[in-house]
């Protein structure tokens, strides 16, 4: 039923997307879920001045990115002053070592995790496992995909590819839960299973939605309370986040939060909004004894060097681009074979994995623009997809890793020929005229196009000549 973890790779996008397209269950699960999410988002913004709010969100993120190095230093200083230990990781490997070292220093055997895409990006669970430390996901969706030895198929709803029956099977097969179609019963069962684990965990690991530089506050948005449990019950809390998640002011958070929850799930508010500003203080009765913040670069400062690609870092990880993407909706999240799937993944993952590994992702879009239209911080996703296509087929001078890896002499020659023809109008007219005359010989089958469509037939008389005839005939 399920694919084991790490089966999917971006190199296999074509095969994986074909298989997903041929799977009616996957098609139905995603279509239904994405239709619902699109409706909820639309309704949630119905009474808002959405364009103004999006512009505000974009401006906040642009301002934060404009001062990113300074804000990161400020964040570090404020966090340290609050008693939060700050660590810097250049890549995922180093970030994993930092987390593992902290765990080992405390003799930790078990880690409970709140939802964190950055921890997925750095493959933290596998790293901890190698060190003999068990990592358990506590977000319900993450818990299910972990039980099923899968990876998340969506950044907000990790188990969105599964339907009720499949979830029932997974819970039954892995935890002995009685099979049921009652969602509340399954949720209650998972809750009971997780509750014990929260109590027993030595360390809690979470992500961060917004890191506020001026106050040294880590904001965490969630619905299940598992984020609060993860960050308050175990004696040690480690927050991991990408360096781009910093915002300048506390006042920057409410607009971004308003955009995030409505764009992601169509909620006006989430059930929980956590603001973590220090470990347990003298006289307090709960909270972790230690709080750590791991700031992960992992290719982000390279993106930061480029004025156009920089826009990629505005992302607040709402997933709206996925929910509205006609490609994602049909092939699902796993087909992309990357931590972040869908449009945002296609503009982010090439920087993390290189354009050679992810070469088919920037082209996996019809450039319909739905992603850019709904992005709460107005990332010009279609333009960035085109930019990465350009890097992929260019001469490799760009600073995107793997630039030029898709360039082939055959394709370059084809475009050069097209260029020659389209810059020599008389030759162009001659060619279209000849094509028209030979239309009887036009192939009925042209590659995959005609597997699904009839072949387009060239017109007997192209517009160039048709207009001349029309003029001659005196505009009849």
């Amino acid at each position, binding site marked *: 039923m399920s694919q084991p973890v790490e089966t999917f790779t971006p190199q296999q996008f*074509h095969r994986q*997307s*074909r298989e997903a*397209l041929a799977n009616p269950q996957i098609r139905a699960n995603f279509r239904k879920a994405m239709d619902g999410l699109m409706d909820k988002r639309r309704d949630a913004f119905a009474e808002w001045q959405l*364009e103004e709010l999006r512009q505000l969100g974009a401006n906040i993120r642009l301002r934060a990115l404009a001062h990113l190095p300074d804000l990161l230093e400020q964040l570090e200083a404020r966090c340290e002053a609050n008693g939060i230990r700050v660590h810097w990781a250049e890549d995922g490997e180093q970030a994993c070592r930092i987390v593992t070292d902290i765990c080992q220093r405390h003799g930790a055997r078990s880690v409970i995790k709140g939802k964190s895409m950055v921890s997925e990006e750095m493959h933290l669970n596998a790293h901890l496992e190698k060190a003999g430390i068990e990592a358990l996901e506590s977000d319900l969706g993450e818990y299910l995909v972990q039980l099923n030895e899968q990876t998340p198929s969506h950044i907000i709803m990790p188990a969105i590819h599964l339907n009720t029956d499949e979830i029932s099977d997974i819970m039954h097969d892995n935890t002995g839960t009685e099979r049921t179609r009652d969602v509340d019963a399954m949720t209650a069962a998972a809750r009971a299973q997780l509750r014990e684990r929260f109590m027993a965990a030595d360390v809690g690991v979470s992500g961060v939605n917004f890191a506020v530089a001026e106050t040294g506050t880590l904001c965490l948005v969630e619905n299940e309370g598992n984020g609060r449990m993860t960050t308050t019950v175990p004696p040690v809390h480690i927050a991991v986040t990408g360096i781009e998640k910093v915002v300048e002011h506390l006042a920057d958070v409410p607009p971004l939060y308003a955009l995030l929850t409505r764009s992601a799930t169509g909620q006006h508010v989430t059930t929980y909004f956590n603001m973590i500003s220090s470990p347990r203080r003298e006289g307090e009765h709960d909270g972790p004894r230690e709080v750590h913040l791991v700031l992960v670069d992992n290719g982000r400062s390279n993106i930061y060097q480029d004025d156009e690609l920089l826009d990629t870092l505005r992302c607040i990880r709402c997933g709206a681009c996925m929910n509205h993407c*006609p*490609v994602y909706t*049909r092939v699902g999240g796993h087909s992309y074979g990357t931590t972040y799937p869908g449009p945002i993944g296609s503009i982010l993952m090439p920087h993390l994995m290189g354009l050679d590994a992810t070469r*088919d992702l920037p*082209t*996996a*879009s*019809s*450039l*319909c*623009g*739905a992603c*850019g*239209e709904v992005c709460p911080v107005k990332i010009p996703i279609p333009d960035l997809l*085109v930019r*990465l*296509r*350009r*890097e*992929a*087929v*260019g001469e490799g001078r760009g600073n995107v890793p793997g630039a030029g890896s898709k360039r082939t002499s055959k394709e*370059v020659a084809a*475009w*050069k020929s*097209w*260029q020659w*023809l*389209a*810059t020599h*109008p008389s030759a*162009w*007219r001659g060619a*279209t005229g000849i*094509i028209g005359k030979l239309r009887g010989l036009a192939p009925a089958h042209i*590659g*995959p*196009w005609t*597997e*699904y*469509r*009839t*072949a*387009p*037939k*060239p*017109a007997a*008389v*192209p*517009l*160039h000549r*048709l*207009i001349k005839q*029309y003029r001659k005939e005196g*505009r009849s």
Partner: protein
Amino acid sequence: MTPVKLYPPRPERVYLFGTCLIDMFFPEAGLDAVRLLEREGIEVVYPDNQTCCGQPAYTSGYHDEAREVARAQLGLFPEPWPIIVPSGSCGGMMRKHYPALFAGTPEEQQARDVASRIFELTEFLVHVCQLKLEDKGGEEKVAMHTSCSARREMGLADTGPALLAQLGQVELVEQVRSAECCGFGGTFAVRHPQVSAAMVEDKSQAIEQAGAEHFVTSDCGCLMNIGGHLAHRGSDVAGEHIASYLWRRTS
């Protein structure tokens, strides 16, 4: 999202940029655009040396090649007349991407000037010509597919339906997910044929299920894709460029 465009008064003359797809595959649609404009008393100038706007290369990442082809078009419109493009996709390329493509080159100003004079056909008919149509055809249920470029890049979701709404005997039927892409996307349909096919299959189904007897679109890429798929599955629903449909029903 789309900046407010101030429309000029109705001009005496316009240029027509016919687009390469219309030139080669749907020339009647180009001629019908000319007829519609001429009926409004506007002289249409068709520069004979036009070829392609450059978009296929541009979206494929071959920007040097796209720029050379685009440069060959820039000089074709010397008079300050509007340039009418019967395609949201080519129109979007010329209006939105030409300025960026020529940024920092000697042609930057010229590219901006051309971009500012680009009008998609239905946009021009509605906002500049304030076209009034008298329907001479019989009763018909029609579905409209507005291309993604017209809808999102040019902000023209309403102009096509507004013209069809003037046809008294035509009922414009609403499809599910009418704003969703048909799956053409230029080279996307070639590079990811199965994904593209899944998209066009859903689009065709939506058009059929809406009860449409006919479908129209303002872009020949979508027309080739959806029409080709409908024909392939033996559907009774045929497609047509909106210029041809409007002309056919009102002449």
